[in-house]
């Protein structure tokens, strides 16, 4: 059974240009999804709708059969979905521990350590970590928030190939071992190949390949 369902979504920016027209999709827990698509095709836009950062002009997004607007987007973002960005989006005056603790519902230290951060690194200012380490902190934050859905927008965009692979593996493991529904937007076909299901966004429509 699907944990997340996207129904007949339509989205256009204020300038009127339609970005998404009639998107339909279902996402299940325990699986990793990859979304491919040309630059400007609307991947980020779609992810921000699924992430509850914006509302579609038409259609609805259902979390466990319930429209996410029902309990409010703030509640949805807080309890059901975590976002991981290309630019990490960490709070620059906090340590990795504190960043993870922002929304943590469980102990953050084991998670950070499992993702390969040392005892010293977790207490350093996040800005003094490498890009790969920062993205691990962002993933640790998503995992410690303990939400069933994790959305990642080009999480490896700023990272070298090896690091990118390890990050994707972490996300994949999260889906398989922690039973998360992971949706990753990427440009890389190689990384997309790691996903259980690959989707492509083209001309405002989403379809499986």
């Amino acid at each position, binding site marked *: 059974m699907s944990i997340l369902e996207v129904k007949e979504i339509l989205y256009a920016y204020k300038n009127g240009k339609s970005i998404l027209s009639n998107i339909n999709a279902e996402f299940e827990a325990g699986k990793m999804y990859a979304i491919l698509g040309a630059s400007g095709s609307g991947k980020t836009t779609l992810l*921000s709708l699924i992430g509850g950062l914006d509302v579609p002009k038409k259609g609805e997004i259902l979390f466990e059969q319930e429209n996410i607007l029902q309990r409010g987007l703030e509640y949805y973002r807080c309890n059901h979905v975590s976002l991981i960005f290309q*630019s990490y*989006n960490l709070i620059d*005056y906090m340590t990795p521990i504190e960043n993870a603790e922002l*929304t943590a519902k469980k102990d953050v230290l084991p998670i950070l350590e499992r993702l390969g951060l040392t005892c010293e690194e977790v207490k350093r200012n996040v800005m003094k970590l490498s890009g790969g380490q920062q993205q691990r902190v962002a993933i640790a934050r998503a995992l410690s*928030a303990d939400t069933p859905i994790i959305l990642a927008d080009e999480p490896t965009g700023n990272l070298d190939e090896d690091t990118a692979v390890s990050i994707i593996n972490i996300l994949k493991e999260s889906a398989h071992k922690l039973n998360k529904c992971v949706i990753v937007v990427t440009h890389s076909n190689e990384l997309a190949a790691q996903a259980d299901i690959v989707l492509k966004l083209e001309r405002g429509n989403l379809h499986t390949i």
Partner: protein
Amino acid sequence: MGTIKRAYLYVTRKKGKSILLFFILLLMATFVLTGLSIAKSSQEEQRNLREVLGGEFQIVTDLSDNNPYAKKTVDSEGSVELYTEYPITQKVIDNVMTIDGIKSYNAETHTFVSVNLDVFPGNVPIKAEYNNLIYAWSVIDTQTTNFFQSEKFKLVEGEHITENKSNAAIISNALAEKNGLKLGDTISIQSDSTATAKIIGIYEILKPDPLYENIVTYEKAENQIFIDFQTLQNLFGNIPAGFGSVTFDVSDPAQLDNIISNVKKLSTIDWRAFEVTTNNETYLEAAAPLQKVQTLVITMIIIIVFVSAIILSLVLTMWGRSRIHETGIFLSLGIAKVKIIGQYLTEVLMIAVFAFGFSYLTSNTVVNQLANELLQQTASASKEQTEIVTQINGYSSDGISISVKDSSSLPDASQQQKNNVDVEIPAVGTETEETQLHTTVSTCSILQLYIIGIAIIIFSVGVSTLTIMRLKPREILSKMS
């Protein structure tokens, strides 16, 4: 992580900003607190001034044709006597005293009498017929007379004349000795009629008359006698005895007009018989420079508050722009907007608690100098006022009555006591250091500062987060990338 923890982390990690904000808030608080303190002290000075000056009004028997009770008699020798059939009696006084705000009264009357005693002759030659006349003071309570209040006289034997006494007299120990009298002896007093009174008290003269001064018989300290009201009535015969005038003291001269108008509304008194006179000009003139300071300072506080709010809003808005990213992240993490604004507010408040506290020190040092300068500027505007205030200053430090009265009426008990209390009065330019407007920062002012300061901070944080908070989280996040 809670709102307060986030705010704490921001404040402690972004030290530069925190320190800058601390100084901005300190400056703001110093200005506000200084203003508040000056306002408060000038308010207090006004109150002190009012208390020290007091206020008074007099009820005087009207002997003109306007008074239907006024009578005129001409005796066989052709001398004219004016009197009233409706004098100021204790009943009239009691009625007036029912009005709120009247602290005390001073009712006394003196009359020429001759006594069957050997008196101390004065050293001024006067008409023979006056040589044996002395003053008999009639009062409700001898303790309240100026003689005893000012400790010129002191009762050494017996008791004071109080309200319920009749046929009672108090004389000096000198007069008693000279005439071989003691407590319980009877003297005969003569005026229109003759009355007898028993000596119930003997006083000693603590401050004798100046040695080489010219004094008439009836003014000599040794010759003063005190009699009760009933005895006075006996002396008057058929003419109703009463007080010529009574002085009422009010504690707050600012209320004087009010009190008088209430007094005049008393239906139990026929006001055709009396006149009510007053004078609170001294108070009004003395209070004027302080009033000006007050107005000036309040205007200043309002300006300071406005300027502070604008500056703080600008600074926070500027910093808020650099925090759009952070705001977007918090929103994307599902942290509620209220909690984000709460964090920004808490940050400023955390620093403000210290800045406001510290402003106690800075303000205290600023306050005194500024206060005096202000007062000097304002007061020097009017030389006349300056003189009045300075004059009051001089009086008060000498412990002399400062109420302005007719020379005949004298300060009563409470007024005397008041003058012993060390009350500071503002100096105006001409005085020495010890008479400066004494201003300190009080707990009350600090409390006001916190209230005003927190209001400014809430306003400024509100303004600075307004633009951010209207945006959708996606817009914020896309703005930053």
